[in-house]
C-alpha cells in the first residue's frame, strides 16, 4: 500500500511537459556508482489490514498495565486516568497534522493552545515564563543546567541524587559536549545533604524526589542565593495540587515531566518536558515561546516570539539547538489539566496522597519491610525488602501486579512504589497480601 496519488498516465504527462521520458532522468545528478541496483532492501508493502495484524502481534507480546497487571510502578512514568476529552480534542487532526506555527495567521489554534499551556505551567510552578515544552523531563533538565551555566558564567553544577537517575545520566551524556562539571550530591535519609560552601552555577533538586520524598526546597533556595547560584527544581505537576510551588520557595528555573497529564505510559514516550523560569532569564529561555499580540486590525492574536534567541537565527551562538518540541503533548496536557480544573487538580493530588499513605502504612506493617526514609511523601515511597527488590517485582508479576521499580545500588537497593488516584482500596489490599508472600 502506498500513498502516491499519481496515475501512470499522469506521470507520463508530467514528464512529457518537461521534455523527459522517465523519472530516472531527474536523478541524473546522483553518480552512477552510488545508485542502488535493487531499490530499498525491504519486503514489499503490506495492506492496511496486514499492518494491523503485525501490530496485533507486537502488542500481544507485551504485557500492558491494566486489570491483569495492576500498576504500582512510577519512577517518572505514572498510571493516571486520562479523561476521554484528551483523545477527542488534543488528537483532532488539525492539531496532529499541523507544523510549527511559522505562519501565525493560520496557526492561531496551536498558538493559543500553547499560550494557555504556558499560563498553566507558570501557575503550577509559580514562575513568570514557560516555554512551549521540550522533549521530556531529562531534556528540560539539560536545558535548565545550560541556562544556569550561561547565566552565572560558572561550570560546576550540583545535582542531588534525589533527581531521577535517568535524567542525571542524560545530563552526564550531554555534559561531554558542553564541558560542565556535574557534582553528585548524596542523600541523607532520603533528602539531599548539600555541601555548605562552593561556587556552583546551580543547585539541582527534585521535589518530591526520585524516592518520593518532599525536599526542603526553601532551604535549597536560600543556600543557592548565598552561593550566588541558581536553584533548579525538578517538580511533579501533580504535586502542584497540594504543595507550595517551587517558584514561591525560591526556584529560578523549574522543570518537570509532563506525562501525568495526558500522556499514556507508552514505553516512555512521547512525553513532554515542562520548563519555566523567572522573567529575568527569558532571553536565555530554550525553545519556542508564544506571546500575545495584535493583528493589523487590532484583534488579539498569538505568535512565537523572542525568536532571536533561537538556533535558526543565532546559529552557533544559540544557547539551545531545540527546533521542534512536543506541541501535541502540550495540547494534551492543557486539555487534561483544564478538565481537572482548579478543584480537580487538588482532588487528584489528594487522592494520590491518600492512596500512598494507605499503601505505605499497610506495607510497613509487613514483617521485614522497612522504610527507606522517614521523610514525608506524596505519591511515591521506597521500602527495603528482605528479598531483593528485583525478585519481588518478578514474583509480583506472577500475582498480577507491577509492584514498582527496583532501585539501583546508589540507593542501597529497595523498591520504589507509586500509588495514583486509580488504585482502589481493594487493589491495594490485594497488593499488600501478595506482597507479604513475595517478600518471604
Amino acid at each position, binding site marked *: 500500500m502506498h500513498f502516491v496519488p499519481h496515475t501512470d498516465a499522469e506521470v507520463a504527462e508530467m514528464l512529457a511537459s518537461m521534455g523527459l521520458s522517465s523519472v530516472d532522468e531527474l536523478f541524473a545528478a546522483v553518480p552512477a556508482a552510488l545508485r542502488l541496483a535493487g531499490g530499498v532492501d525491504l519486503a514489499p508493502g503490506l495492506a492496511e489490514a496486514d499492518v494491523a495484524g503485525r501490530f496485533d502481534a507486537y502488542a500481544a507480546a507485551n504485557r500492558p498495565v491494566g486489570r491483569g497487571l495492576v500498576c504500582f510502578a512510577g519512577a517518572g512514568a505514572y498510571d493516571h486516568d486520562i*479523561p476521554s476529552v484528551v483523545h477527542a480534542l488534543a488528537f483532532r487532526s488539525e492539531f496532529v497534522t499541523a507544523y510549527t506555527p511559522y505562519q501565525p495567521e493560520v496557526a492561531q489554534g496551536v498558538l493559543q493552545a500553547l499560550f494557555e499551556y504556558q499560563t498553566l505551567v507558570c501557575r503550577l510552578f509559580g514562575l513568570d515564563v514557560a516555554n512551549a515544552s521540550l522533549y521530556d523531563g531529562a531534556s528540560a533538565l539539560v536545558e535548565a543546567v545550560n541556562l544556569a551555566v550561561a547565566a552565572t558564567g560558572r561550570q560546576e553544577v550540583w545535582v542531588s541524587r534525589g533527581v531521577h537517575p535517568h535524567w542525571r545520566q542524560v545530563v552526564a551524556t550531554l555534559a561531554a559536549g558542553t564541558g560542565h562539571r556535574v557534582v553528585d550530591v548524596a542523600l541523607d535519609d532520603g533528602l539531599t545533604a548539600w555541601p555548605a560552601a562552593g561556587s556552583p552555577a546551580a543547585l539541582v533538586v527534585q521535589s518530591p524526589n526520585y524516592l518520593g520524598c518532599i525536599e526542603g526546597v526553601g532551604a535549597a533556595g536560600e543556600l543557592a542565593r548565598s552561593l550566588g547560584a541558581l536553584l533548579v527544581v525538578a517538580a511533579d505537576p501533580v504535586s502542584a495540587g497540594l504543595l507550595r510551588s517551587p517558584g514561591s520557595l525560591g526556584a529560578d528555573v523549574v522543570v518537570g515531566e509532563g506525562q501525568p497529564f495526558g500522556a499514556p505510559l507508552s514505553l516512555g514516550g512521547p512525553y513532554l518536558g515542562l520548563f519555566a523560569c523567572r522573567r529575568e532569564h527569558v532571553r536565555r529561555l530554550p525553545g519556542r515561546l508564544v506571546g500575545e499580540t495584535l493583528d493589523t486590525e487590532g484583534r488579539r492574536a498569538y505568535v512565537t516570539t523572542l525568536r532571536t534567541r533561537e538556533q535558526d537565527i543565532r546559529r552557533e551562538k544559540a544557547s539551545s539547538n531545540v527546533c521542534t518540541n512536543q506541541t501535541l503533548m502540550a495540547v494534551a496536557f492543557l486539555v487534561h489539566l483544564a478538565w481537572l480544573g482548579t478543584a480537580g487538580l487538588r482532588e487528584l493530588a489528594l487522592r494520590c496522597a491518600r492512596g500512598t499513605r494507605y499503601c505505605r502504612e499497610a506495607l510497613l506493617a509487613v514483617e521485614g519491610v522497612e522504610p527507606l526514609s522517614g521523610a514525608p511523601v506524596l505519591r511515591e515511597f521506597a521500602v527495603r525488602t528482605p528479598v531483593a527488590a528485583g525478585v519481588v517485582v518478578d514474583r509480583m508479576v506472577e500475582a498480577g501486579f507491577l509492584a514498582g521499580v527496583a532501585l539501583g545500588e546508589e540507593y542501597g537497593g529497595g523498591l520504589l512504589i507509586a500509588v495514583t488516584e486509580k488504585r482502589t482500596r481493594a487493589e491495594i489490599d490485594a497488593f499488600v497480601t501478595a506482597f507479604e508472600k513475595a517478600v518471604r
Partner: protein
Amino acid sequence: MSTGSAPGGRATSAPLMGRDPEPTLFELSSPGRTAANFRATGVPEWSAEELVPAGALRDEPTPVAEVSERDLVAHMTRLSHRQFSVDLGAYPLGSCTMKYNPKLCDDAVARAGLADVHPASPPALTQGWMALLADLEDALCRITGMAAATLQPPAGAAGELTGLLLMRAFHGAGGQGGRRRRVLIPDSAHGTNPASVTLGGYEVTQVPSDARGCVDLDALAARLDDDVAGIMLTNPNTLGLFEEDIVAIAGAVHEVGGLLYYDGANLNAILGVTRPGDMGFDIVHMNLHKTFAVPHGGGGPGAGPVAVTDRLAPYLPGPRPVRTAEGPSGGGDAYEWAYPEHSIGRAHSWHGNALALARAWSYILANGGDGLARVSQAAVLNANWLRHRLRGTYDIPYDRPCMHELVASATNLKRARGLRALDVAKRMLEEGFHAPTTYFPLVVEEALMIEPTETESPQTLAAMADALIRIAAGTGDDAHAAPRTSPVGRVDEARAARQLIPTWDARPT
C-alpha cells in the same frame, strides 16, 4: 496538464464562522465550575493537613481553569478550526516534508498492548515493544546503508547532538579528542547544525557554496586539516540539489581523519535511489516526522534516530533492544536491554518517543521497499514539475533538476513591484495553501523554499502553480493586507517581542 477534476489539496472552501477572537480558557472560567470526576476507591479520606507537613502545604489551590466539559470541548474545537493542517490542504513548507499522514498509522499504535506499557517494566513484559524497535532499527539501517542505530533521540536536533557526541567519543577513543576541535558546515545548512556543533563542544567552520549551489571543493580543501572532527552535510542540500561531488568530499574528509555526518532532513528525496552509507557517511540522523510520515503535531513529537557504521556502533547510546540468540523457553527471538561497549550513555529519559517510532514503522511496513522508492520518485517529480511551471515567473537561482524541493526567489518581483517573499507567503494563505518556507536557505535572497511532497496530486500541484503565478502578477501594495481570509490578519510580531506577554497572567490590566 489535463486536470479534469478539482484539486484535492486546496483549502479555500474551509468554512470559517467569523473573525472574533476565541476567548481563553481563563475567560471562559466560572468560579467553582469543574469537569473532573473520580472513581470510587474506598481509600480512607484523610485531609490535606493530615497528609502534608504544614510548611510544604499550599495555602490556596493552584488556579487552573474552571470550565465545564462542554465548554472545554467547544473551546478546543474552535481552536482547531483556527489552524491549518495537512489534513485540510497542501502544505508545501520547504525542508519540513509535510506529507499526508496515513490514518492506518494512527490505528496501528492505538493498542493498549503498546500504549499502556510501563517503561520500567521487566523486559519479559516488553518483548513486543523491543521486537518492534529492533525491527525498525533494522529497516532504518537498510534504508540508510548503516550498521546500527539508536532510536532514543526525540527530534532531529537531538539526533544531531547525539551524532556529534558519537563523533567526540570516537575521536576521544582514538586519542585525538583534544586536537580535533572543528566541525565544517556548509553556509546553506539548517540553523540546528551550528547550534548542535556548539553544544557538542566543537567550533563551527563555515564552508561556502559554489556557483552551482553545492559545497565549494576548493574552499573545503582549504579548511580541511587534522584538527577537523568532521563535516555535517544535508544531501540533497537545503537548495534541493544533490551534492554531485559527495564521493570526493567524503574522500577528502576521511583523508584527514574526519567523519561525515548526514543530516537526514532531506532523506525523502533518495529512498531507493542511493544511501548515505554508500556516499561515505559515518553518522546519519533521520527525521521520522518528515520522511516516515509521523505527523508533526504542531511542532512535535517527532523522532530523530541516529544510525552509524560498524566502527561507531560501540559508542551508541543505551540501553537499546538487543536480540539474544534464543528465547528463554528455547523458541523464537528474545530481547534484552543492553549498552554498547563504549556507549556515550543515555540520551533520553526512557527509550525515545516510542509511539512515534511505532507509527514510522507502520508507515514503512505499509509502503514496503517498493512503496518507499515510489515516494522519492513522486516527490522529485512534483518538485521538478513545479520548477518548470514557475520558471520565468519567479527567479530560480539554481535552475537545474532539483530533488524533492525547489528554492525560488522573489527578488525579481521585489524589484519590479515591491512584492517580497513574505508577501507571496501571506498571499498563498489566501489562495488556500500553506505558505512555502521563506528566507531560507540564507544563501538565497527572498527565498521561497517549496516542497510539495509526493502525496499531492498533479491537480493540486497545478492549482498551487496557478496560485503562485497569479500572486506574482500582483504588487507589494496589494499584498500588504494579506491574508484577508484567515482568523486573524497579519500579526504584529514586533509588538509581541517589544511588549512581551507570555501568559494570560502577564497581560497588562
